[in-house]
């Protein structure tokens, strides 16, 4: 709220009256609060409705007018999706696929990000933008054909490989950007003292880049976790990832709203929890591709 004072050579012409609770001011405050409420409520209401559906029994869920507060809150829907729709297995599949694709991306992406930053090869990040512009389905057609040929369709390996499309560009992009911000003096000193480039990277740059690694890891994991279409096309019954499995709950249980909502929560809750750690960096991740503001 610190209003900067006008500089000395400008005549101070601000005889501000002490603020009073006039009617006008109250009306303005109320209007502002109302505007904030209107803009925030869709976000919160959809999530609350999702929670409400997941905690109600089918009787409550199928009543009209809708019941908002469950008459008898129940966890039966969650138990149902884990017991009857093998959500546990699909959760594990998603962990393996997203975890695996993220680990590979870190292994190849962190050194590459360092190389790009220190070679100042900024043009390579254009590739990230182009990769982002390419529709995911267009990667899928050739990879599907190759996996078919290799007999890899319906395997988790195929899914991990495909998810590299998502995780590698984002890790390279985030790491190149992060290494750019690190001071070079320490590394140069280490190099002059006879350290190899690899040793300098390993013992000087990498420890300093830990925050960047955390952000890259979480973003890559989230984007991979949220991906639906790769799992929907490439996975077999036992190798589905969570989003693909949840979609199947929809097609087979058209009107079982409780289990559907419970399944939706199981998919998205881990992501929402992860985002809490990287609130600020999310924008950088979602706008990845060299489109820095301004």
């Amino acid at each position: 709220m610190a209003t900067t004072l006008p500089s000395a050579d400008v005549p101070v012409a601000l005889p501000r009256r002490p603020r009073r609770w006039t009617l006008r001011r109250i009306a303005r405050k109320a209007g502002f609060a109302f505007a904030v409420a209107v803009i925030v409520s869709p976000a919160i209401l959809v999530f609350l409705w999702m929670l409400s559906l997941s905690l109600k029994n089918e009787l409550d869920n199928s009543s009209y007018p809708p019941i908002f507060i469950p008459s008898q809150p129940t966890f039966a829907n969650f138990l149902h999706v884990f017991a009857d729709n093998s959500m546990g297995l699909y959760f594990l599949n998603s962990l393996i696929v997203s975890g695996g694709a993220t680990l590979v991306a870190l292994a190849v992406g962190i050194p590459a990000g360092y190389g790009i930053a220190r070679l100042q090869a900024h043009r390579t990040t254009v590739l990230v933008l182009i990769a982002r512009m390419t529709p995911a389905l267009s990667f899928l057609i050739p990879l599907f054909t190759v996996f078919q040929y290799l007999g890899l369709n319906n395997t988790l390996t195929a899914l991990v490989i495909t998810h590299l499309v998502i995780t590698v560009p984002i890790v390279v992009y985030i790491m190149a950007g992060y290494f750019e911000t690190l001071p070079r003096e320490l590394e140069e000193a280490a190099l002059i003292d006879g350290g190899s480039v690899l040793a300098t990277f390993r013992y000087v740059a990498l420890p300093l880049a830990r925050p960047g690694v955390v952000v890259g890891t979480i973003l890559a994991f989230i984007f991979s976790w949220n991906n639906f279409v790769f799992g929907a096309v490439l996975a077999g019954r036992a190798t589905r990832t969570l989003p693909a499995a949840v979609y199947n709950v929809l097609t087979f249980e058209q009107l079982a709203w409780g289990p559907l909502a419970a399944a939706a929560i199981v998919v998205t809750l881990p992501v929402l929890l992860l985002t809490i750690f990287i609130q600020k960096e999310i924008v950088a991740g979602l706008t990845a591709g060299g489109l820095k503001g301004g």
Partner: protein
Amino acid sequence: MATLASPAPRSGSAAFFRRRQRALRLMTVPALVVIAAVIVFPWLFTVYMSAFDWKIGTVAHFVGLDNYVGLAKNQRFLEAIVHTFYFTALAVVVPLILGTIAALLFHREFRGRGVLRAIFTMPMMATPVAVALVWTMMFHPQQGVLNYLLTSVGLPPSLWVYSPTFVIPSLVMVEVWHWTPLVMLIVLGGLASLPTEPYESARLDGATEWQLFRHITFPLVLPFLMVAAVIRTIDAVKAFDTIYVISQGGPGTASETINLYLYLQAFAFYNIGNASAVVVVFFAIILALALLLLHVRQRTKWSG
């Protein structure tokens, strides 16, 4: 291709410098191999396959540009392009407007701002399929909560995604809910970087709030809005998950966008040759839109 702009090393040893460059380049090799395998190879393969008539399980025939000629005459594909542009235009403009309003609100300081902003940005990271499921239930014409809300304020109920007229606007609603936060955060970043001097002098001259916005805030934030527009356009053109889950391109083909058409060609009919041609055309459209917007953005850039 990479040129080094930093000063030459003091040790003066060119060999040392070359060794360092080579080591750095070697470090990028594993990532380049992966990118070549999962990104560059699919591009080349797609362009190559688009010249063949090939369904999985049959022998491929070279047909040259026939797939493209076929697409140009394909009524369903041309309609899909129209649906895509309609969907994209709405799904870019509405979040830009709402996101700017939200950013102006969150730019002020008020109690609970941090918490409310965090809640407001939650939709952005939520898994699209999960979001789509919840909206599918909300759109339900008989038991959906949206029709309940409409009728309880005296409006007639809507068929939402079951009506050919309303299906695209309804799907845009989901898209707006999902992605307005991203626009808000980009614009908020812009607002935070604005200089304060112009406001002070304009206030001294007695400018109204609207004049401040129209003549100072808006022009200064425009470059950020353009960034948001580019990103939103790329994402909206490619929208798939929510449309596929909520309407499957229906009713009929009323909400079939290029991406949905592509999916059917590739993974319902296994018509790989034709689908590859769709991909090439689709990518050309995305590229053209992005270049157009980047061009406009370049012209709105302020120097300073």
